[in-house]
């Protein structure tokens, strides 16, 4: 029964595919997968937007949307309808073709990433051996669309925003990759399915997630930071930093194209959360052995949503960094830390089983973090201050 529920989507797909003649079956299978992704993730997009608006509201002592539909659940639907009927303005001097293509490219590219994510047991749509590489290749193409948007708008703010976005995304691509390399080192595979399989084991009922190892945890933190920057989320949401740059690279977009950017951004966020969950949080594996009765796909989506909630929480709390600080942080702190983490991962392999490697690896990472943080703060001359008074 449990197994049945776990594999319900897989079985359903097989059943439907079985209805058509043999030669068409692979095509239909692909179409079904695509349709499933296109149905599920925009839905999740709507849910996360609503969650964000309500969650932010609660953090700020208010209620958030609650008028449109029961408890405000229809708010994203209304926003969607509004975006559809909104007039589509294209600036007179803009490059019309590129201006039109930019959001399309973004949406296509971010959806491609889902092809390799294992969303449950046997639920990877394209089980690729080099899945991780494919994912990063797709993630990097999103930058293209952002630059297209900024350049084609012929607006200073858009161009500045796009340039910032591209610089930022390229800078954080490096730590993003390097922190994932740790996982590749530990599993010896680039296949995301393999990575999940390795984590889907239990000792005393507790899972073997990589986040519970020292360098796995460090890589997880670095990955989370880099992923936030990669998806332009607060506190790294400079490209759309509204207080300086109006609305960043999509300043000149209106109507449905703007909605596409919005969609693309959130879907990218969901997908990178999915990747993070796959790499560090065991993908679709249950957090406790006894919880394996719950279907695997539930765990995958639950982990994504938890990740999204964390994003929202950060957005509600932090101011944003400045461009050069962001770059400094990427190149001078996150990158060295990830490189060190690679060394530690090697050390871990080398030291063999036993408690000693836990102590040594943790100590190295912790010392590096504390020291690096302190040196960084001192070199930039910032820190807490005391004040004097005049009577």
């Amino acid at each position, binding site marked *: 029964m449990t197994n049945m529920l776990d594999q319900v989507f897989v079985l359903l797909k097989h059943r439907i595919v079985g209805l058509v003649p043999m030669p068409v079956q692979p095509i239909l299978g692909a179409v079904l997968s695509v349709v499933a992704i296109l149905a599920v993730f925009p839905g999740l997009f709507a849910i996360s937007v609503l969650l964000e608006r309500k969650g932010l509201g609660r953090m700020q002592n208010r209620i958030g949307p609650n008028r449109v539909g029961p408890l*405000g659940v229809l708010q994203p639907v209304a926003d969607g309808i509004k975006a559809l009927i909104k007039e589509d303005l294209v600036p007179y001097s803009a490059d019309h073709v590129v201006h039109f293509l930019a959001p399309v490219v973004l949406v296509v590219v971010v959806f491609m990433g889902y092809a390799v994510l294992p969303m449950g047991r046997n639920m990877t749509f394209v089980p690729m051996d080099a899945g991780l590489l494919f994912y990063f290749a797709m993630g990097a193409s999103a930058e293209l669309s952002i630059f297209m948007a900024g350049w084609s708008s012929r607006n200073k703010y858009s161009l500045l925003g796009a340039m910032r976005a591209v610089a930022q995304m390229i800078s954080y691509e490096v730590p993003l990759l390097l922190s994932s390399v740790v996982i590749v080192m530990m599993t010896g595979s680039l296949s995301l399915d393999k990575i999940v399989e390795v984590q889907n084991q239990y000792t005393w009922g507790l899972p073997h997630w990589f986040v519970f190892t020292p360098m796995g945890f460090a890589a997880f933190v670095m990955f989370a930071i880099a992923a936030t920057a990669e998806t332009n989320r607060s506190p790294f949401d400079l490209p759309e930093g509204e207080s300086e740059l109006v609305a960043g690279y*999509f300043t000149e977009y209106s109507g449905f194209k703007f909605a596409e950017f919005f969609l693309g951004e959130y879907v990218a966020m969901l997908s990178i959360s999915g990747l993070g969950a796959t790499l560090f949080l065991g993908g679709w594996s249950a957090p406790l052995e006894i919880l394996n009765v719950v279907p695997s796909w539930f765990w995958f989506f639950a982990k994504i949503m938890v990740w999204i909630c964390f994003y929202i929480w950060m957005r509600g709390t932090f101011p944003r960094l400045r461009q050069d600080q962001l770059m400094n942080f990427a190149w001078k702190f996150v990158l060295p830390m990830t490189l060190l983490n690679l060394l530690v991962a090697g050390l871990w392999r080398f030291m063999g089983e036993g408690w000693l490697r836990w102590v040594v690896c943790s100590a190295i990472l912790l010392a590096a973090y504390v020291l690096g943080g302190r040196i960084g703060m001192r070199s930039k001359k910032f820190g807490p201050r005391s004040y004097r008074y005049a009577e």
Partner: protein
Amino acid sequence: MGLGERSFDVAVDPELKIELGKQGIFVTTIQELYNWGRKSSVWPMQFGLACCAIEMIATTMARYDLARFGAEVFRPSPRQADLMIVSGTVTKKMAPQVVRLYNQMAEPRYVIAMGACAISGGPFKQGYNVLKGIDRYIPVDVHIPGCPPRPEALLQAFMTLQKKIDEQSLTGENRPRYLNVDAPGEFPVPEQGEHDLVPASNPNVWTVPVVIR
């Protein structure tokens, strides 16, 4: 961008509709869906002028929470905004910018003139640099008197606007302005002359009743 004279409405008897609704069947028309989408997702432009802007900010804050209506998404870019809340005194130096911003907004767009100054120049109307009401240049949907109006008054105006949107039909006399092919989409931006704005008002949107004293 007119939709022509053909009616999209599917006539449904209102009583029948309520009856169906009781049984869990909801009937809707394109027009209703259209208006519902428009009115439920009005994103204001992040744009404040004077004192009233503070009350506008207060409206979005925890106590009054404009977000309940789904309108907390203050868009900094006019392209993505639906509603311009003219919150405060429009000076003659600022008026061309306001009109320009309005021109940059995508249809459907609405304007709320918040506060005495935005409606008529308010207490400052006899000054040399104060425009006597923004409706001299752009069409205003809802006026809120008050100096400044309370946040609740802005919420009430917001609901008035929603009601107004809801009552519009897609065709016929009552259709919104932008669905009328003949209605202007761009409003001329006044120039700053040597003594005053030129022209002093846009006669297409500003016709004054004569008050004889």
